């Protein structure tokens, strides 16, 4: 038998990334929607900025965007591809399972970057909110940490529910609940999770305000991200059959 050559991880990953980013680009209507919602809310809240503070408003809007990425974008894309057997087709190729997921997550990290940038840009030009360079840098960092929670939650939902349509319905409901709770209500753990994400974003944007409560919120956020991701990975099945 001739010697078998396995393609390098870099070759595999670059092919997957090109395909996944192309897929995301072709779904740009949903990308635009994910970008528009937090920006529209930011513009609508213009009158509240003096009362609530620029960082608070920005953190709320970014959290709404992170919600949409994890719950509406990521989980539904994974559920659909699993339902269509796209993962199974990839898994019979000589690549590792982690490379398939790493590529998918890279697309979502780019989405987090995009949403956060869109909110910062709209905040600067429309609402005249400007942050220090450290504030912007920490804002991005906290957006990635916060985004991990909602991606983990999306993963847990896809792990728990096999049917793609049910995943779609459940994630919409959870998204709606998060938005409503975040804006108008208090609801135990859900409220704490949303508050923790908003808090680390807000404190990150104003590094001088970072305190013990911020550190606790960061730990809570990381804890939720690990918990949800762990559940999602443990329960996840590559096939919906």
């Amino acid at each position: 038998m001739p010697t078998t050559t396995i393609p390098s991880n870099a070759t595999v990953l670059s092919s997957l990334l090109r395909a996944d980013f192309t897929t995301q680009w072709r779904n740009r209507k949903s990308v635009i929607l994910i970008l528009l919602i937090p920006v529209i809310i930011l513009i609508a809240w213009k009158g509240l900025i003096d009362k609530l503070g620029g960082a608070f408003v920005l953190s709320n809007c970014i959290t709404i965007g992170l919600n949409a990425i994890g719950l509406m974008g990521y989980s539904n894309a994974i559920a659909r591809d699993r339902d269509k057997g796209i993962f199974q087709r990839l898994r019979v190729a000589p690549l590792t399972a982690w490379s398939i997921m790493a590529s998918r997550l890279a697309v979502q990290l780019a989405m987090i970057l995009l949403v956060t940038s869109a909110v910062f840009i709209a905040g600067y030009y429309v609402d005249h909110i400007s942050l220090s360079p450290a504030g912007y840098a920490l804002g991005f960092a906290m957006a990635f940490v916060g985004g991990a929670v909602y991606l983990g939650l999306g993963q847990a939902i896809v792990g728990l529910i096999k049917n793609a349509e049910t995943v779609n319905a459940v994630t919409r409901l959870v998204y709606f609940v998060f938005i409503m709770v975040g804006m108008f209500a208090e609801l135990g753990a859900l409220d704490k999770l949303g508050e923790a994400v908003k808090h680390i974003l807000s404190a990150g944007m104003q590094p001088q305000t970072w305190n013990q409560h911020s550190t606790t919120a960061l730990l809570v956020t990381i804890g939720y991200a690990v918990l949800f991701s762990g559940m999602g990975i443990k329960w996840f099945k590559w096939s919906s059959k």
Partner: protein
Amino acid sequence: MQHSSNTIVLQVEGLHVSYGTFQAVSNVSFDVKAGEIFGLLGPNGAGKTSTLSAIEGLLHPQSGNITVAGYNVKENPLHARANLGVQLQATNFQPELSVSEILQLYAGIHGVALTKEKLQTILADIKLEDAARKRFGQLSGGQQQRVSLIIAMIHNPQLVLLDEPTTGLDPQSRRQLWERMEAMRDNNHALLLTTHSMEEAEAVCDRIAIIDHGKVIAIDTPQTLIDKHRNDTEVISVSRKGKITLEDVFIGLTGRTVRS
């Protein structure tokens, strides 16, 4: 119709697959040689898909040994899969990607450099030169099958698994696919085919295994199976035109009962 060499490309030994208490595959053994088309036939729920999934490495069997091109599927999964080309039953490519993008993706993950010229040659070979920019979902069933087959072959694997490849194809497309399969066999590839069409199995397979209730109940060339069982009472009783066919043997061996 024997073209095979003695090189065993796929070896399945004592395969056991169970789901909870249900034994889907029980002590299944067979091999496929280079330059051979081997058919795996069986009624619905007989254990064909579980056997294929175990070969593909998509499920872990309770026991048994599978080697592809000499590589153990469990111990060297990536090496085994690098020697394996798969055409699955369902459409399973990202619907947003075009035909050329899908080809580039699968060439990339198999470590095959695909230049524009090579891509054009491949598309011309499957008569899809004008479809490079079309989305996979916009292709006809026959075109989709041709793309799936070319993707299964893009890395020139030693073993190709074809899971009911002609389902839903018109007679012309089916004949064309048979010719492609025969060309692959002539190029010394080993092919494992599952099909419900006995006509297809008789037309293209060098050897077949009939599997039922998770067990291999017969394994031989189509003609030898017909000759061996032509006088069986069950086979004669299901014969429709006075001439014993592979389908008569199949129904005679697996029973008339419709499976779910």
